[in-house]
């Protein structure tokens, strides 16, 4: 066993100044909190870890779980972050902004095939309805690599990490972290770090195909052009105690996801993810590859929380699903709601017209004018509500029909001959029916 082990953190570059250098007091507070964070768990002298590389928002170090690492074969490392309150670093899909950390081990010729792994993330809401996916407070990104050591008793593990740390502001940092790792024919775990790394390896999503009792499937619903929806089902899955499962999609070439809606049933879980298309398609889409991670499931991990991941070629469907209990901002496919909304709008417009006629015929009844404005405001409110449920093009068509209804009603009120009034009445009814029909189809 080595008598002394070397660890160092070499901040070789900070790419930019603090994003909001004017907030000096906040930075000082963050720095103070971070000093406490970093100072408290100072590793024992024998622990194999680099020194903490610190800044006001975060601290990072490289850990290895071995006192003696295997000379050949798989080598595990950990990139250990501690973060000031409310600051976060990122998952492999950072969300609407930011970017995930990147590592470079090219300065370690005996260490190769390094892969940064991504524990189950959290979702953070940012101002402006933006979202970030990542980690607050503390995270250890496990790093899986291969080692092929020479005859020396140790190898220098030199890792450069570039990362972005954000709260609302973002600050990029870059550090080179180094550990002199003893190697031998038999590995010897370091109790101070092996447990920490193992706990975060437990939080890595498991390939869903390796989980007994949970089946996943997906369907890309393109039945409504302009409003695609990805449906992801997990049969046999249930939420972990006190947790609400969340679905995270990896970056997709064609689609941007909106917040998923979760439906729970005795059979399992289903997520509906409204998508927005990034670019017009040259030809009909038959299928598309999606990758997702689902967190917060009941599992046999030490903390009882399981995360799973899957990658599938998802077939596109141009027919609506048979049962569509839409929730959470997903457009309802039921014709009842839009039809009722359109009927309400139609009746209100008719009422507006009636009040106009009554007001005209009665020579101005007190209050009818104000009532007309109230009715108009109600029409606006209802159309606004309707706009969340039908496509903009459909809404425009509905409104044109309603405009026709209003004009026909006005013309009818001006007509004197009964035959002409009858014709206008038919037109009013036709325009109302057209509005209802458009709302229903839309």
């Amino acid at each position: 066993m080595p008598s002394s082990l070397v660890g160092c953190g070499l901040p070789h570059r900070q790419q930019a100044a603090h994003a909001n250098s004017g907030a000096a007091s906040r930075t000082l507070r963050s720095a103070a909190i971070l000093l406490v964070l970093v100072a408290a768990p100072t590793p024992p002298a024998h622990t194999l870890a680099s020194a903490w590389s610190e800044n006001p928002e975060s601290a990072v170090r490289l850990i290895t779980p071995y006192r003696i690492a295997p000379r050949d074969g798989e080598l595990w490392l950990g990139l250990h972050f501690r973060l000031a309150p409310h600051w976060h670093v990122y998952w492999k899909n950072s969300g609407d902004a930011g970017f995930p950390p990147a590592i470079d081990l090219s300065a370690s010729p005996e260490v190769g095939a390094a892969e940064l792994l991504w524990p189950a993330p959290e979702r953070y809401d940012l101002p402006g309805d933006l979202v970030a996916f990542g980690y607050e407070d503390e995270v250890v990104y496990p790093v899986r690599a291969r080692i092929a050591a020479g005859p020396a008793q140790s190898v220098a593990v030199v890792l450069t990490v570039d990362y972005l740390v954000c709260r609302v502001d973002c600050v990029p940092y870059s550090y080179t972290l180094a550990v002199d790792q003893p190697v031998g024919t038999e590995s010897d775990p370091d109790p101070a770090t092996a447990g920490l790394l193992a706990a975060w390896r437990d939080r890595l999503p498991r390939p869903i195909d390796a989980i007994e009792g949970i089946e996943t499937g997906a369907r890309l619903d393109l039945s409504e052009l302009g409003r695609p929806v990805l449906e992801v089902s997990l049969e046999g899955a249930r939420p972990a105690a006190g947790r609400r499962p969340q679905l995270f999609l990896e970056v997709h070439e064609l689609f941007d996801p909106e917040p998923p809606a979760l439906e729970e049933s005795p059979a399992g879980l289903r997520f509906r993810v409204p998508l927005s298309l990034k670019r017009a398609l040259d030809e009909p889409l038959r299928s598309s590859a999606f990758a997702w991670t689902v967190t917060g499931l009941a599992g046999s991990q030490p903390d009882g929380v399981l995360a799973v991941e899957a990658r599938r070629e998802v077939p596109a469907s141009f027919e609506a699903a048979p049962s569509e209990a839409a929730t959470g901002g997903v457009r309802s496919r039921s014709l009842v709601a839009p039809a009722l909304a359109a009927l309400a709008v139609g009746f209100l417009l008719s009422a507006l017209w009636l009040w106009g006629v009554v007001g005209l015929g009665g020579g101005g009844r007190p209050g009818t004018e104000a009532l007309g404005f109230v009715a108009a405001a109600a029409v606006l409110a209802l159309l606004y509500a309707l706009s969340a449920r039908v496509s903009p093009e459909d809404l425009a068509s509905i409104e044109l029909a309603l405009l026709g209804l209003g004009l026909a009603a006005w013309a009818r009120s001006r007509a004197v001959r009964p035959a002409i009034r009858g014709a206008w009445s038919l037109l009013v009814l036709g325009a109302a029916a057209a509005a209802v029909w458009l709302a229903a189809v839309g």
Partner: protein
Amino acid sequence: MDSMMRSKCLCLALAAAATFLLACDASAATIVGEPAPGFTLPDLADDQHSLSDHRGKVVVLEWINPKCPFSERHAREQTMSALADMHEEVVWLAINSTNPDSSDYLEPAEHLAYNGKHGIDYAVLYDTSGDVGRAYDAKTTPQMYIIDETGTLLYNGAIDDDPLGRQKPAERTNYVAEGLAEHAQGSPVDPATTKPYGCSVKY
């Protein structure tokens, strides 16, 4: 016509027109290959700029926030201004959608000073309501858009493939430079979308 009747008709017409406009506005989208949302915004001297003013020319939109380290790095490296200078035939507009309540907000005079420091000589438009940013679904600074002569969106995404700024500018793949060159040659812009990197837009 009786005054009350006129009021009712006016009321009805306003309701229909307003909601029709609402629907038209909501139809704006940021799908590459479809029309880019129109806008009219003031620049730092309070002169109005409309996208429609530039019909017939290629327009590049750059979402900017001088207090975002990524925007600041590109300003320092003159990534955008050098490209804009190389393409005098292109209308380059930067849009700042920072909310005035955000600590990142700069008064126009401060932005002018920043532009002078970094050699930014194209128009910077203020979108303090964030309406134009949301219409374009702009999420990061910087985020880039290329719009062709007919107003069709050709590109939406990052300025380049080097979020960390580790490579020399000449070694990076500048998606906007490539897109402009491809469009000039009559080729489709490829890639037409990339994931932008940087700070979140401070709506």
